[in-house]
């Protein structure tokens, strides 16, 4: 199966720091891939490189098997890739559908639309459909997002991203600030996104969450991918070992793949 997105030999230096050092990455459609690594291992830099937020020194990207050259986030959006940042980038005073369509409002038909009038009814209906499709716990389309729980806000950000991304969603620490129940809700949401056939890249420091929801784990260390392993049968100790380099010998390493 051709990966929906593949990176080969990405390198990027900031001064003397090699943030990415001949790093690889791949993800298939309908797959959850966790990207893990210690702080400074290059996870965020990798996501930036994959979504057009970073100029590369060298390396190649392939999207659905074809070479890809992107230089700004808009191109990534156009291809169907969206990033959910850790701060979620939601406007707390707006409600879920207003947030979902912020910057992409549906105009009213005809002359009024040209004047900047919006079709709130259509936006609300589409948002409603998006939330219903994904299940989850966001019920009110009219309450301010700022009054909602962290889990619900995360869901809103995810629903917004998959409303515009039909290929790949990048989630940066989606469960970092959440409690047990809310974490479970977000992980359920991630599964449902995957079941829609959308690839999910999950950056997380929470090993239990990674093991619960991801299909594969790619471990980064010192700017390069040091291991990729299926989560089936993997343990937290193995993942931490791979991240810190203590258990290299026991893992399916790059060379063996």
């Amino acid at each position, binding site marked *: 199966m051709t990966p929906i997105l593949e990176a080969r030999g990405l390198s990027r230096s900031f001064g003397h720091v090699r943030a990415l050092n001949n790093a690889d990455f791949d993800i298939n459609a309908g797959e959850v891939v966790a990207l893990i690594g210690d702080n400074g291992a290059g996870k965020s830099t990798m996501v930036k490189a994959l979504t057009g937020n970073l100029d590369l020194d060298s390396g190649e990207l392939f999207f659905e098997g074809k070479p890809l050259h992107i230089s700004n986030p808009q191109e990534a959006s156009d291809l169907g890739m969206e990033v959910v940042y850790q701060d979620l980038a939601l406007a707390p*005073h707006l409600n879920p559908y207003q947030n979902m369509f912020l910057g992409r409002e549906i105009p009213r038909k005809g002359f009024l639309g040209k004047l900047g009038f919006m079709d709130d009814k259509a936006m609300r209906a589409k948002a409603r459909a998006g939330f219903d499709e994904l299940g989850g*716990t966001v019920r009110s389309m009219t309450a301010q997002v700022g009054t909602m729980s962290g889990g619900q806000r995360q869901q809103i950000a995810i629903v917004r991203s998959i409303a515009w991304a039909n290929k790949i969603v990048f989630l940066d620490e989606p469960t970092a600030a959440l409690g047990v129940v809310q974490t479970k809700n977000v992980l359920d949401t991630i599964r449902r996104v995957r079941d829609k056939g959308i690839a999910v890249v999950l950056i997380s420091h929470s090993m239990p969450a990674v093991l619960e929801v991801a299909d594969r784990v790619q471990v980064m260390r010192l700017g390069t991918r040091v291991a990729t392993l299926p989560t089936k049968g993997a343990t937290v100790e193995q993942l931490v070992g791979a991240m810190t380099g203590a258990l290299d010998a026991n893992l399916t390493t790059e060379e063996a793949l």
Partner: protein
Amino acid sequence: MSVIAKEDQSAVVDHGPQDSLLKRIGSLQAVWILGVLLVIVVFFSIAAGSKFLSASNFSLISQNIAVWAVLGVGMTFVIITSGIDLSIGSVLVFSSVVAAKLMASIGGDGWGVALIGILAALVSGAAWGVLNGFLIAKAKIPPLIVTLGSLSVALGLAQVLTGGIDVRSVPGALTDFNTYIKILGIPSLPFVALVTLIIGGVILHRTKFGRYTYAVGSNELAARRVGINVDRHLILVYGLSGLMAGLGAVLALSQFGTTTIAGQSLTNLNVIAAVVIGGTSIFGGEGSIFGTVVGLFIPAVLQAGFVIIGVEAFWQGVAVGTVLVAAVYVDQSRRAAALRGAKSRNPILAMLRPNK
């Protein structure tokens, strides 16, 4: 490794706020403050009877707030972006001076001259606003400082242009418009203000421009992330505020038949007070034109009422200041409650309740 078994989804949901329309309306500060206004009206109606509750009294009140109402439209937009515009009074003076001087130099009493003056006032006001917006959005100077500066500069330039003496030659067409003309039974100046308020309300609540205004005030970074041109939007919002000051200049010329160089020093603060009393949050992201209308009526009704029942009008300042502080306190408490995730509690009751 999936430790959580498939279970009934409803057992683990964190329930979101499911607000009925009635509850949402009740949670708007504009509605509470409308209640305060009604209480004031009822009080004066009982105290002064038909003298207060007469068409002529309310016609007078609406004429007194027409200029502030127009300025309030622009100010509401500005404050929703979490900004402030202190310069509106001075920009009004500058624009009225430019318009009056221009009309005087052309001469004549007809509508032709008046239209040129109106255009000049609007352009001058909008230009000041755009300058404010540019300095705020592009030079990243805080709005308070930028507009404090333009307050000083605009008033200073107006005094330079006139030597400090008011220009009294306003075309008859403009002053007659205020004195004689009624539209749909409403005096002309309040009618212009009403139309401006309605247009402002429609733009704020129904268009993309309005939605972006809320978004910029609510979370500027998020607005940038979704591709909104925040800098351009801020320039337009301050430009709108300046344009409204230009329109206010036209109304003031029409109302007084002269420029009011010394008469607008507190206009900015009065308008800001009205906007904030009306529930527009100085922290941005929240507010409505309807609230601003209510916030304008409270000081005006108080003043008229005090005059009628024979209380010194000085008490108006005391009353308005108190309402202003109380309104902001209520607003902040609601915000804090929302952040804690609490169901909207009545902050006044919460204040009376002892801490545990």
